[in-house]
């Protein structure tokens, strides 16, 4: 008899505070599993950002700091520079990373800070009640785009990974999703690689994960997965944007 799947030791015993079916939870598991499998928990300091994942400092089974909205990468930089041998990751939503925090994220990337960014893109501001995010899709109705996102008024959804692919300091960058077990396995590979690269001090690593927000999309959890695949992936294609080379063990 063998345990084929169980809760990761990378997560604490606290019940997650996410809504039913929210894939933030899946991403949490993957991060936890990677840290355990790489034996990194004792070295790791995670940065919880402001968003639904703000409470993630209660969930990841490692040292954690909670960062002001948008500033996770600055906080991570602060820590990494004084503790260069520890593993530092941020966990940020699209509002946190792509809107208020785009400057801090770009500059951490450009400096080649040796940190890992877990970027959970759900095309909306989950925590504050479903306002438009810079990643919201054209036509998407949100509480602050009641007539849908309009190109002329709001611009296109911002393509973070496409933009970051132009930045020299980025060592690894991939966009993945977690809508099926297969996608989840790929996502896990990406996250693991990002952490491994950080171990090897290769520079800035980021994994953009397309994620659902059933509650604020107003779509049932299972259907949310389909909505994501049908509407988000065409705008945010899954892709390996940058990989500075094979991992050498």
């Amino acid at each position, binding site marked *: *008899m063998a345990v084929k*799947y169980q809760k990761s030791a990378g997560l604490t015993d606290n*019940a997650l505070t996410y809504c039913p*079916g*929210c894939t933030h*939870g899946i991403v949490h*598991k993957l991060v936890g599993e990677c840290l355990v499998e790489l034996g990194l928990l004792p070295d790791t300091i995670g940065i919880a950002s402001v968003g639904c994942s703000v409470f993630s400092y209660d969930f990841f089974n490692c040292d954690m700091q909670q960062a002001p909205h948008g500033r996770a990468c600055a906080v991570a930089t602060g820590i990494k520079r004084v503790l260069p041998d520890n593993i530092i990751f941020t966990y940020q939503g699209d509002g946190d990373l792509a809107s208020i925090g785009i400057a801090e994220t770009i500059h951490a990337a450009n400096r080649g800070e040796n940190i890992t960014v877990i970027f959970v893109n759900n095309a909306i501001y989950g925590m504050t009640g479903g306002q438009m995010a810079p990643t919201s899709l054209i036509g998407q109705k949100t509480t602050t785009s009641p007539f849908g996102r309009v190109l002329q008024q709001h611009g296109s959804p911002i393509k973070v990974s496409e933009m970051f692919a132009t930045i020299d300091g980025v060592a690894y960058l991939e966009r993945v999703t977690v809508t*099926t*077990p297969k996608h989840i396995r790929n996502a896990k590979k990406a996250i693991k690689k990002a952490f491994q690269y950080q171990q090897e001090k290769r520079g800035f690593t980021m994994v953009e994960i397309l994620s659902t927000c059933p509650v604020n999309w107003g779509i049932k959890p*299972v259907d949310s997965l389909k909505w994501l695949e049908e509407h988000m992936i065409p705008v945010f294609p899954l892709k390996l944007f940058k990989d500075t080379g094979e991992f050498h063990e």
Partner: protein
Amino acid sequence: MPKGRITFEYEKCKGCLLCVAFCPVKILYMDKVAMNKSGYNIIKVTDMDKCIACAQCATMCPDSVITVEDITNA
């Protein structure tokens, strides 16, 4: 011969149905009556013997509710 066994940490289940949707052998369903303390209806198994221990359910579960065991060697 039964292959897999799954167990639930029910108090953490939120009834999102992701596990149900992804079980290839369709043995999971929501019990419309049974509720946990948080008020969520929980998930039950129709026929555990059909479980193939593929862990699709557990992989999809955002709340790490499900443990999957391979019992072929048991």
